[in-house]
């Protein structure tokens, strides 16, 4: 019996809401198949499965909000039948991270029967209150010795039905703000960032790009962003300490460069899904991938592997007109590369003053994993990569 659990679709995700199942009991599933659509606070994500088997039971219903790690479905392995498969009871949800503080109940709301010390609340009542979003401290107990029971919680949920129904209309923008706040606070709390920047002359790259695009129809033209992504991925090959995750007190290097691309959303907020294995893809392929990714990110239909896989994020604020960006690392990643606007400026090369397009490449890196010396060498490598656009 295989358990399909809600994966974490980003470090800032504690829970998700099932929007839709894409499979039914009895369906055969393959590795990488999209089986469900889950709403994180950031996007509706197509969740893929990484085991093969036959769907046995769907344990979560659409519109249910469940913590990361909850078993959503069970699958039969090859050779298993419903009879031979051991029925696994639905796993208790993992404890939630600190719940949002609720206003302290008025003293009068405290039941008279409350005894000194811990209030008597049955385990089932406590669990159900959490599911219904009822503040257990405001529920009066009518059970044995004034204990709060299931019936009390249901009663409380029923009486507050109108305000309760009014509140949960999800404010998408607020939810995303909350998610970004959580991830960025964690980053600045846990990650000792250091920052480096390097002006990179872009004459060769812009010339090469203009030439390469000359023979292409408008729809197939390459963007500078694609060259930059590829250059970052190639530079990472020599600097594995920039590419991976810091987890459980140790760095885990990644075997491939799955570059997260920061995409700002029209309704506000941003998202940084991955383009997989950037180092081994052609520029044409990367262009197609990037176009597709931006389109789907804005339409809200990303895949789970795109959300959870980025090993380093690249942010490009050049279009917005800023000269340079010093980013906040997205945990558990250990580095973020930023590009500013490509701007023509005076440039001295071999004793000659010229006017050259220049971009400021920046690196925010995790000092627990790498030091400024290596970070500097990485930026120099990136600069050299961009001087040989034909090799990208």
């Amino acid at each position, binding site marked *: 019996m295989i358990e399909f659990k809600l994966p974490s679709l980003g470090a800032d995700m504690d829970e998700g809401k099932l929007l839709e199942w894409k499979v039914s009991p009895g369906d055969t599933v393959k590795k990488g198949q999209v089986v469900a659509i889950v709403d994180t606070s950031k996007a509706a994500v197509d969740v893929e499965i990484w085991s093969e088997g036959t769907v046995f039971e769907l344990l979560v219903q659409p519109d249910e909000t469940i913590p990361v790690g909850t078993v959503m479905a069970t699958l039969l392995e090859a050779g298993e039948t419903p009879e031979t498969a051991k029925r696994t009871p639905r796993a208790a949800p993992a404890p939630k991270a600190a719940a949002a503080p609720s206003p302290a109940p008025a003293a009068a709301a405290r039941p008279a029967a409350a005894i000194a010390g811990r209030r008597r609340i*049955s*385990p*089932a009542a406590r*669990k159900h209150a959490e599911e219904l979003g009822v503040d257990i401290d405001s529920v009066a107990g009518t*059970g*044995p*010795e004034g204990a709060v*029971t*299931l019936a009390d919680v249901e009663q409380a949920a029923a009486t507050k039905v109108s305000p309760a129904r009014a509140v949960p209309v999800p404010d998408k923008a607020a939810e995303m703000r909350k998610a970004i706040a959580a991830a960025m606070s964690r980053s600045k709390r846990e990650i000792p960032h250091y920052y480096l920047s390097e002006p990179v002359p872009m004459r060769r790259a812009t010339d090469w790009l203009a030439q390469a695009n000359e023979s292409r129809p408008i729809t197939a033209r390459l963007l500078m962003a694609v060259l930059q992504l590829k250059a970052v991925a190639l530079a990472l090959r020599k600097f594995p300490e920039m590419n991976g995750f810091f987890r459980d007190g140790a760095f885990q290097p990644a075997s491939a460069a799955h570059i997260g691309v920061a995409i700002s959303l029209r309704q506000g907020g941003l998202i940084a899904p991955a383009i997989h294995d950037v180092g081994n893809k052609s520029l044409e392929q990367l262009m197609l991938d990037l176009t597709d990714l931006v389109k789907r990110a804005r339409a809200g239909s990303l895949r789970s592997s795109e959300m959870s896989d980025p090993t380093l994020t690249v942010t490009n604020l050049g279009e917005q007109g800023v000269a340079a960006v010093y980013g906040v690392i997205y945990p558990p990643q250990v580095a973020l590369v930023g590009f500013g606007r490509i701007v023509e400026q005076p440039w001295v090369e071999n004793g000659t003053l010229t006017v050259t397009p220049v971009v400021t490449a920046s690196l925010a890196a995790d000092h627990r994993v790498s030091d400024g010396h290596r970070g500097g060498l990485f930026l120099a490598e990136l600069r050299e990569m961009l001087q040989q656009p034909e090799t990208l």
Partner: protein
Amino acid sequence: MKMTYREAIRQAMHEALAADPRVFLMGEDVGKYGGTYACSKGFLEEFGPERIRDTPLSELGFVGAGIGAALGGLRPIVEVMTVNFSLLALDQIVNTAAALRHMSGGQFSVPLVLRMATGAGRQLAAQHSHSLENWYAHIPGIRVLAPATIADARGMLGPALADPDPVVIFEHAQLYNLEGELPDDWRCDIATAAVRREGTDVSLITYGGSLPKVLAAAGQLAAEGIAAEVIDLRVLRPLDTETIAASLRKTHKAVVVDEGWRSGSLAAEVMACIVEQCFFDLDAPVARVCSEEVPIPYAKHMEEAALPQVSKIVAAVRQVLGK
């Protein structure tokens, strides 16, 4: 067909004796007297003294002989008059019958069926009235059954004899006169618990001689608008905890009724399983109704006071429900 629990036991043994020449019955007064509870009336005449054997008053001796016969290829049914007397044979049961398969690395098995009466309520006082099912349910290597219905009295012996390991069957002395309909499909397993009455408000979990009291209590509670689910454990070892957990997930409350003494009782084991498996489903502390912790008294009013009764069960349910 209407019959008594006694008759159901008798028919089950008769069928086994007639069907399999390896089966024989041995115990105190099983032959000439026809059985202390008249479960083997007429057997001596029908099957002869070779297969219906009266024994001396030595539980240690004849249970040991039964184990030997089982090892030798026979299928003995050994009847012990009461669980109190079976204590004399504990060494044979615990140290030999239950352990031989394990100690021989699987080379020997002991296909022995031990039947014994248990329980109080007939003014037989402290040496004939105790409920020590939990002692046996503690022992790995034996299966422990508690038929509480006409159908189980009729159906459990067959699979018990077919089991390659020792099986102990407890027949509550108060049940022998129980009369009821034997359903056509009386054949049963010896692995699962049974839901004897469906309900949604509280699970009443019991076994053996307490089942009729619990069903009566459930009837009384229904009149008060409380829907009690009644679970008959049937098999005391190994416990079918899944049936218990499934019921608790529905009712969220439980009262365990057990004629054994409270401390270290089977009720305690059931409660521990509930807490282990259903903690987050519980809506009230689990309660139990057990016997008072005294040797069972002789005087009728005192014996009644010492045992679980319908009124005590109803009171415990009301308390759990906060009513």
